[in-house]
C-alpha cells in the first residue's frame, strides 16, 4: 500500500513538484517585500528541475493513484510543453511586468499554478481529475488577465473571460455528469473499455458533446471563440501569450487524451461535430483576421484559425494525428510566444502601442527583432523551412490518410488567406518608414535569451523535425 503510494508519487513527480514549487513561491512572496528577483529565479529554476523530472519519468508509462492519473510518455511530453511555455513566458515577461506596473509576486506563482493545472488537466485519467485540472488552470488565469486592475480594458477582459469561462465549465461538468449517469464511473480507461456499447447511447454521446463544448471553449474554436479576441487584446500581452500557447496546448492535450487516444470516437457523430467546428474556426478565424488593426487581436483570430487546423487532427484521429497535433502545439507554442513576446517588448507602459502600425520601421530600429518576428510570421503561415510547415503537414497527412481530404483542402485554402495578414506585418516592419511616435523595445537579457530560444526552436524543428517528432510519436 505504502509502496504503491510511493511509486505513484514518484511517477507523478512533475505534477507533485509543481504543486510544491507553487507553494514555495507563494510563501516567498508572502514573507518578503523585496523586488521580485527571488520569485523569478526560484520559479525558473524550479520549472527547469520539473522539466528534468518529466524527462526522468518519461519511461514510466502507466497510471498512478488507481488509474486516475497518467504517468510517463504522453503525460511527460505534454508536461514538458507546458513547462517550457511557462519558463519562456516568465523570462519574456520579466521586464514587461515591471514596465506595465504589474510587478506583483503573484504573477509568478499564478503562472505556476496555471501550469500545475495544465499538467493535471492533460494527464487526468479520471474525469474528476481532468475537471479539477481544468479549474486549477482557469481560475488563476482569470486573475492574471486582470492583474493590471487599474487598466479598464484588462479588467473588462478578465471579467468577460471569467464569466464565459465559468459558463463553459458548467457545460463541461454537466457533460461529465451525464457520462457518469450513463456509465457509473468517471475513470476514463474503464469507460474506454466499453466505448463501443456507449457510442450508440445518445445520453453518453450528448455528455461527450457537452464536454466537447468545454474543450472548444478553452481551445477557442468557433462558435465558442468570442472571448478570445477581447481577452487577448485586453489582457497584459504576456498573459495573452501564455493563454494562447499554454492553455491552448493544455486543452488540446486533454482533448487528445480523452477523445482521440482513449475514447477514440473515430467516425462517429462527434467527429462530424468536430469537423464542423474545425471548418468554422479556420474560415472565420482567417477571414476576420484580415481586417484587424491591432497586432494582439490579429494574433487572437489567428489563434482561432490555428485551433481549427489542429481540430482537423482531432477529427482525423489515430496515432499520426496525435503526433501531428502535439508537434503542431510545440511549433505553435514557440512561434506564438515569440511573436507576443516581441509585441510586449515594444508595447507602451500603459499597454497601448500594439497596433500593427506601431511595428512600422521596426527593421530600422531593431533589425534582429524584425527578422525574428518575420521568421515567426512565416512559420505561422506554414512556410518551410520553419516549424509551422511541418505542423500543418503532419495534420494534413493524417487527415488525408483517414479520408478527410476535403478538410485538408479547406485547410489549404484558408492558409492561403492567412498569407495576407501575416505578411502585412512583415511589410510594415521592413518596408514602411517609422511613425512619429517611436517606441524603443525593452526586454532585458532574460527576454533576449528567451526570444533567441524560441526563434532557434522554430528554425531547428523546422529543419530537423525529428528532434520533436521522435518524442511525440508512438505515445499510445
Amino acid at each position, binding site marked *: 500500500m505504502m509502496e504503491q503510494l510511493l511509486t505513484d508519487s514518484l511517477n507523478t513527480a512533475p505534477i507533485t513538484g509543481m504543486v510544491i514549487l507553487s507553494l514555495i513561491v507563494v510563501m516567498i512572496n508572502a514573507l518578503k517585500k523585496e523586488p521580485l528577483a527571488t520569485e523569478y529565479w526560484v520559479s525558473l529554476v524550479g520549472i527547469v528541475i520539473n522539466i528534468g523530472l518529466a524527462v526522468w519519468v518519461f519511461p514510466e508509462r502507466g497510471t498512478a493513484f488507481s488509474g486516475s492519473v497518467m504517468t510517463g510518455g504522453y503525460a511527460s511530453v505534454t508536461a514538458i510543453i507546458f513547462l517550457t511555455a511557462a519558463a519562456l513566458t516568465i523570462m519574456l515577461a520579466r521586464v514587461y511586468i515591471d514596465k506595465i506596473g504589474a510587478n506583483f509576486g503573484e504573477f509568478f506563482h499564478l503562472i505556476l499554478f496555471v501550469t500545475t493545472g495544465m499538467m493535471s488537466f492533460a494527464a487526468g485519467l479520471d474525469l474528476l481529475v481532468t475537471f479539477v485540472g481544468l479549474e486549477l488552470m482557469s481560475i488563476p488565469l482569470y486573475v492574471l488577465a486582470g492583474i493590471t486592475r487599474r487598466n479598464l480594458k484588462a479588467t473588462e477582459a478578465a471579467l468577460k473571460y471569467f464569466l464565459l469561462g465559468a459558463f463553459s465549465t458548467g457545460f463541461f461538468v454537466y457533460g461529465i455528469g451525464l457520462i457518469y449517469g450513463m456509465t457509473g464511473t468517471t475513470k476514463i480507461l474503464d469507460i474506454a473499455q466499453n466505448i463501443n456499447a456507449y457510442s450508440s447511447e445518445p445520453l453518453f454521446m450528448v455528455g461527450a458533446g457537452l464536454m466537447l463544448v468545454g474543450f472548444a471553449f478553452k481551445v477557442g474554436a468557433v462558435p465558442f471563440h468570442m472571448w478570445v479576441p477581447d481577452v487577448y487584446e485586453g489582457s497584459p500581452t504576456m498573459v495573452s501569450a501564455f493563454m494562447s500557447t499554454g492553455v491552448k496546448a493544455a486543452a488540446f492535450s486533454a482533448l487528445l487524451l480523452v477523445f482521440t487516444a482513449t475514447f477514440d470516437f473515430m467516425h462517429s457523430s462527434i467527429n462530424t461535430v468536430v469537423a464542423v467546428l474545425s471548418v468554422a474556426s479556420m474560415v472565420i478565424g482567417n477571414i476576420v483576421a484580415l481586417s484587424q488593426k491591432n497586432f494582439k487581436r490579429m494574433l487572437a483570430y489567428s489563434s482561432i484559425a490555428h485551433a481549427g487546423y489542429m481540430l482537423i487532427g482531432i477529427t482525423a484521429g489515430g496515432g499520426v494525428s496525435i503526433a501531428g497535433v502535439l508537434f503542431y502545439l510545440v511549433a505553435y507554442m514557440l512561434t506564438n510566444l515569440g511573436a507576443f513576446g516581441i509585441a510586449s517588448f515594444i508595447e507602451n507602459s500603459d499597454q497601448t502601442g500594439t497596433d500593427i502600425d506601431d511595428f512600422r520601421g521596426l527593421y530600422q530600429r531593431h533589425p534582429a527583432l524584425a527578422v525574428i518576428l518575420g521568421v515567426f510570421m512565416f512559420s505561422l503561415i506554414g512556410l518551410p523551412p520553419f516549424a509551422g*510547415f511541418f505542423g500543418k503537414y503532419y495534420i494534413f497527412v493524417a487527415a488525408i490518410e483517414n479520408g478527410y481530404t476535403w478538410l485538408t483542402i479547406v485547410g489549404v485554402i484558408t492558409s492561403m488567406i492567412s498569407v495576407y495578414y501575416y505578411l502585412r506585418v512583415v511589410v510594415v516592419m521592413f518596408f514602411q518608414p517609422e511613425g512619429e511616435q517611436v517606441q524603443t523595445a525593452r526586454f532585458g537579457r532574460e527576454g533576449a535569451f528567451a526570444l533567441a530560444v524560441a526563434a532557434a526552436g522554430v528554425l531547428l524543428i523546422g529543419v*530537423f523535425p525529428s528532434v520533436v517528432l521522435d518524442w511525440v510519436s508512438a505515445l499510445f
Partner: protein
Amino acid sequence: MESLLPILLILIAAAFAPLLQRVPGRVAGWGLALLPGAFFIHFLTLLPAVQNGGERLFTLPWIPTLGISLSFRFEGLSLLFALLVLGVGALVLVYAGGYLAGHARRGRFFSFMLLFMASMLGVVLADNLLLLFVFWEMTSIASYLLIGFYTDKEKSRRSALQALLVTGFGGLALLAGIILTGVAGGSYDIAALLSSEEALRTHGLYLPALLLILLGAFTKSAQVPFHFWLPGAMAAPAPVSAYLHSATMVKAGVYLLARLNPVFGGTEEWHYLLTLAGGATMVIGAFLAAPQTDLKRLLAYSTVSALGMLVMLIGLSTDLAAKAAMVFLVVHSLYKGALFMVAGVIDHQAGSRDVRELHGLARVMPFTAAAAFLAALSMTGFPPLLGFIGKELMYEAKMQAPSASVFLLVAGVLANAVNIAVALIVGMRPFVGRKPVRPGRAHEGPVSLWLGPLLLGLGGLVFGLFPSLIGRTLIEPAVQSVRAEHVDVALKLWHGINPVLMLSLLTIVVGVLMFLLRLRARRVAAELRVPELLLPGGLYRRVVDALPGAAGRMVRHVQSGYLRAYLFTILVVFILLAGYTFLKLPGWPIDTGFGDVSFYSVGLVVLMIAATIMVLVARTRLVAIAALGVIGFGIAAIYVIYSAPDLAITQILVETLTVLIFLFVIRHLPRFGVRSSVPTQLRDAVVAVFSGIVVTLYSLKASGVQLDTAISTFFAENSLPAAFGRNVVNVILVDFRAMDTLGEVTVLAVAAIGVYAMMKLRRGNGRVS
C-alpha cells in the same frame, strides 16, 4: 554529395554575405561568383555520368518517423537546370556587383541572391517531393525579398507582395497536390513514383493531385491566368529580373512539369490541360507584349509567352516536343537573361527604359550593343544561332502533334512573330539610329556590366554553330529524363529546305513587319483596352482590396463585444446540437416512473417556480438576489426530503455564502439601467426556455439509467459492522468519507476568510478607477 555540398556552401555564403557590405560591390560580385562558377565547372565534369540515363542518388535520413529523407538525385534534367542555375548565377553575380556597386544595402542583396540560388539548386536536385516543396517555397520567399529590394518604393512593395501571394497560393496548392500524390503513389520519392506510375494514373486521387500540382506549377511559371505577377515583378533590380524572372525561378514550374511528366504524363487530362494553358499563355503573353514601351515590361510579357511555349511543348508529350522543349529552354535562358541584363545596363547608363526615347546607343556602348545584337538574333530565331534550331524543333514538334496541329502552328507563328518584334525593339532599336539624346550621359559600363550579357549572347552563337556541343552531352540526358526512355538527340543547324524552314521564314517576315508597324500596333492596342476588371490582375486587385472590408463587416456581426451576445450564441449552438441529437436518435422514451411525489415536494417546486418568476420581474438587484436565494434553499430542502442531508448541508452553506458575496458586490453596482426592448426580451426568453427544456430532458433521461453497482447497499451493510454506527448518513459523513467532509469544511472556511478579507480591504483601499 554532389547535390548537398553546393547547396550547403551557397547557403553558408548567403549567411555571411551581409558582411560584404564593406567590400566594394564589384569586388564582392567577382568574389562571390567564384563559388557558383567553380560548381558550374565541377558539374560540367559530371556530364558523362548522366549519359544514357545514368544517375546518382544521395540520401540522408531526415525525418525517419515519416519515411522522409533528404534525398537528392543527379541525372539529366537536374543537371541541365543546375548548370543553368549556376552558370547564369555566376554571371549575374558579377553583373550585380557592377549594377549595385555603390548601393547602401548591397550586402543584403547578395545574401538574398545566394539564398535564392541555393534554394533553386535544391528544387532541381531534390528527389523527394516534400524536400522539393521546401526549396520551392524558399525560392518564393527569396523572390519576395528581392522584388521588394527597393523598399522605399511603394510600387515595388506592392509587386513583391503580389508575387508572393500568387506564388504562395500556388505553393500551398502544390503541397496539397504532393501529399495527395504521396498517398496515391505510396511514396514521396520521385524515383519510387516512377516505378508505380501506372497505379497512380488509375488512382482516384490522380485528377485532384494533378490539378493541384498544375496550380502550383502554373502560378510559379506565370501561366495565364496567373501571369500578371511577373510583369509586376519587374520592379526588382535588373539582376533579379535577369536571373529569377527569366532564366531560373519562373522555370521551376516548367521543371516540375518536365520532371513529373513520366509520372503524371501520358493521360488525356495532362495533354489537354498543359497544351491549352501553355498555348493560351503563349498567345496572350505575346498579345500583351505588343503595346508595351518599357524595355523590362516588353521582356516580361515575352517571357510569359515563352513560358507558355515550354508548358505547351511538355503537354504535347512526344519525343520531338520534349527535345524542342529542352533546347528552347536553354535558348531562352541564354538570350532572355542577356537581354534583361542589357535592359538593366541601358537603364543604369542611359537613365531610361522607354524604347521611344532610346536610340544610337551602339556608338557609346559597343560591348553592350554586341551582346544585345547576339541575344536578339537568337531570339528572332535567325540562323546560325541556337534560337534558330530551337524554333525549327518547335515547329516540327507542333506539326507532328497528336491533335490540333494546325491551330498550334498558327498560334506558334503569331506568338513567335511578336517575339521577333520584341527582340528587334529591345535588342536593336535602342542601339541604332540617331545619336543618343544625352550623349554625355550615356556611356559604356564597366566590364562587370557587359561581360555577363556578352557571354550569354556568345553562347547562343557558339552553340548554334556547333550544336553537337550540347546535343548529346546535355540535351539528350535531359530528354531521357522527361520521356523516361532513351531518345536520340542529334542537333543540326541545317535540315534542308522543308516546310519547317518555310514556316521559320514566314515568321521572320511577319515579325519584321510587326516591328515596322509597331507604332500603329501600339495605337490599336491602346484602343483595344480590355476593361481592367476582366483581366486576372484586376480581379486580383479587386479581391485583395475587398477582403479587409468584407472581413471588417463580418467582424461587426460576429464580434459585437457584448457578453450577452456571446452567451446567446453559445446557448443557441448548445440547443441546436443537443436538441438535434435528442430528436434524431432513437430510444428516447422518458422514464416516467417517478414514484410517489410528496406533498412537500410539490409545494417546494411551486415556491421555486414563483421565486424564478420573481427573479425575472424584480426591479432591484436586492430582490432578485433574495429570490435566487429562495431557489437555492428550495433545492436544499428537496435534498432533505430525499434523505441526502450531507448534500443539503453543503447546499445551504454554499447558498448562504453566495448570497452574501452577491450582497457585497451589488452595493457597488449602479441601479438597473435601460431594459432591453420587448422583441429582444422575447428572443432571450425563447432561448432560455429551450435551454431549460433541453437540460431537463437530458436530466430526466440520465435519472432513468440503471447503474450496475449500487453503492447504497454497501454503506447500509457495512455501516454497523465496520463503523459501529446505526445512522448511515452520519457514518458516511464522519467515517467513510471523513476526508471529503474535512475538505468541504476547509474550502468553506477558506472562502469565508476570503470574503472577510475582501470586506476589510474594501474599507481600507481606494476605489478601482
